[in-house]
């Protein structure tokens, strides 16, 4: 059985590489789909734009969402996801460099499941990804029917 994908929305290639590395280091083997901006993330989720033909019901297991993004930012993406029935229940973990209270508060207000501040120390980052991955991919029982066929 094919594991559902993890959607990583991140524009910084360094961060992409490090995040992938952190996931791999934690033995998370799900396919990681990387999109570089908010609009692309939505296109992917709803099977639009360059992702036409993708089944929107084939939901990612987890969305790792940066806040600061080109075009649509992380909060816009989260808002749109939570407004749509198809993506409403997908777990979303915000990944951000920002520790600003407003950012954290706004994320939770819009329905984020977690908020992780990317630490500069990579060891700590790996630790954080480990905890998130373990929780949302292994321990968490997803809502019925959310797994892609």
């Amino acid at each position, binding site marked *: 059985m094919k594991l559902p994908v993890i959607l990583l929305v991140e524009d910084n290639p*360094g961060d992409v590489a*490090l995040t992938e590395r952190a996931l791999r280091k934690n033995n998370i083997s799900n396919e990681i789909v990387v999109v570089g901006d908010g609009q692309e993330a939505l296109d992917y989720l709803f099977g639009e734009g360059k992702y036409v033909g993708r089944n929107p019901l084939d939901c990612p297991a987890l969305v790792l969402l940066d806040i600061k993004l080109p075009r649509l930012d992380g909060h816009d993406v989260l808002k749109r996801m939570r407004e749509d029935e198809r993506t409403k229940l997908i777990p979303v973990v915000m990944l951000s460099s920002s*520790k600003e209270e407003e950012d954290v508060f706004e994320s939770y207000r819009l329905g984020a499941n977690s908020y992780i501040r990317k630490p500069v120390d990579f060891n700590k980052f790996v630790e954080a990804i480990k905890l998130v991955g373990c929780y949302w991919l292994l321990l968490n029982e997803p809502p019925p029917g959310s797994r892609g066929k």
Partner: protein
Amino acid sequence: MRPSGRPTHTSNRVTRLLPGGIRERLFLLITLALLPLLLLLGWVYYQRYQIRRTTALQTELEVAQGVATTFRAYIDGVRRQNYVVGQAILAFDPYTEAKVLRVLTAATDQYPSIRNLSWVDMSGTVLVSTLPVFVGRSVSTRPYFDQILQGRPWAIGDLTPRGIVTPSPTFAIATAVRDGNSVLRGAVVAGIEPALLGKLASTLRRPSGGAYAVFDSKGVLVYRSPDPQYTWEDRVRWIETDSVLRHVLETGRPEVGIAYLSIPGRRWVSARVPITGTGWVAGAGRPAATAFAPVRRGLVLDALLAMLITALAFLLAYLIARTIAGPLRDLEHDAEAMGAGEIELRDDSLAPSEVHCLRNTVEAMASDLINRAADIQVSEARFRELADAMPQLVWTADPDGRVDYYNERCREYQGISPSKDQGYQWAPALHEDDVQPTTEAWQHSVKTGEVYQIEHRVRRADGTYRWHLSRGVPVRDEAGNITKWYGTATDIEDVKRTEDKLRQLTETLEQRVRERTAQLEATNKELEAFSYSVSHDLRAPLRTIDGFSLALLEDYEDKLDQEGKEFLHFVRDAAQRMAQLIDDILRLSRIGRAEMRLENVDLSALAESITGELRQQNPDRQVDSDIQSGLIACGDTDLLRIVLENLLGNAWKYTSKTPNACIEFAVKEQNDERVYYVRDNGAGFDMAYADRLFTPFQRLHTEAEFPGTGIGLSIVRRIVNRHGGRTWAEGVVGKGATVYFTLSTEGGCV
């Protein structure tokens, strides 16, 4: 509204009925005293009149009765003579007319009033008469003859306008002549002319205007003395006005009364008495004027006497009133004189004792008044001196709002001058724009009694307008009524100008503050954007540096020598330290922007909690903490917690190499100020660098000695500054350090 409450309602009512002056009241008193006397006099007169009337009526009645008796006696005499004559005629044997005539003539001579005497047979035909022309005539139609025929012994005929042969009014007395068998044989008829009765009545002539009369059964006047000559018409008409006569004819009883009689004229006291057996009436009368003349004379005398007495009494009253009212008027005059300040102490020995007393009292009062007036003059002079000495315009006004006094200052103003009827006029001195509001404010105050206060421009004598503050305060009497207004007008032109300048300055200042605030806000926004960018954008590269350094160390471990690995460790340390610095800068800037919520903060409890956490984090360390209890300060709890965290954290950190480490948190009073301090016996510092302690990222120790970025005290200073306080530090190298701070928000919390 008089203060005295003594007069009651009833006495008020009485007073209202009484005349005002003493003299008038005295006159009223005398009038009231004389009134019973006059009434008595009237009663006596009335009584006397009544007696006189009764007497007069009685007299007339008696006279009338006398007349009746006399006339009846006359009639009786005539009819008896007739009878005797008749009997003589029957006795004639032989009967001759000559003999009869002789007897008749002899009988006629006896009674002058008898005009003729006739012998009449049973058919009423005159057989013999002293009046020859009468013979052969018939009297059968006369009522008296009918009476004879009907069997009466005698009869009297009413007065007729004329006899059968005589032209003047006549009446007849007839006597039946019967023989021994009582058979009627004829009658003797005496024809009587009333005018001739005077001879008979001369004995009854009355003095003093009295009169008497005889009326026949129809009320026709038969005879009246003293004036027997009446026409037939007058005789018949008499009864029309003689009500007494009519009454007697109806009732047959004597009657008296006073009535106006038209035939003789005037009012008469009349008595009418029936003459028995004849149906005729006798009358007597006197003019009422004559009858009551004595009474009237008495009345006139009495009235004159009463008037004399009354006049005397009033004269006396006038004199007495003068002795009462006069001294009172004198007293009033003197009191007025005293009131006007002309002291005139006089004695009035003629005055009644009460007035005398009053005079003494008034004099005492007056002298008291004069003393007081003198006092008032002194005090008023003082008031005026004071008022004139004042730099303000001082004024007073009566309760109606008319200004009645200005101090000397008013000379400095143009337009304020006394006018005849309205006191001082102040409106002309006002700026035309201020006249209406000022007048309204003043009228409002006068109406309501509220303090009057207004700012307005007043023209000074040099023609310039200057702003003045006018203020008026009412003075009230005990009853709360306004008796006077006292006021001032103060020149506030200079103050106004200063105020204006100040206002302009303030406005400029405010404008600048607004501009600066706007600038600051803009800067703040930029700073926020910068902070955000710092936190986000500057960290991302650091993370990449650190992450890939680690990736290198991990993935290329075998290709790197020891030195290369060390270099990568330096790279990672630097990246992480830079991330720490960035975080510190953000914290510092966030503290500057954070909103403050002032409340009472228990600093002692905060300190205890923080040291508790420090002990938990470093369980292997032995540190004595001495925290003064009950330190309550006003400030933002979160920020003050950061202050104590930093200070206690520093103390904890810098005592890490000190045995018997001791940390103290307490307060001391210094120059009336509460100074909080955190003291330790740790590494201390060189006082030469004391000021650099509070500069961000300035450190006096190496990272190796004591870790840290050097942001803590900068944050402390910033927070304390935001609380309006100060921070400073004292230290000795190796002996420890003390950091002090104050909070000016003390007492700012409830």
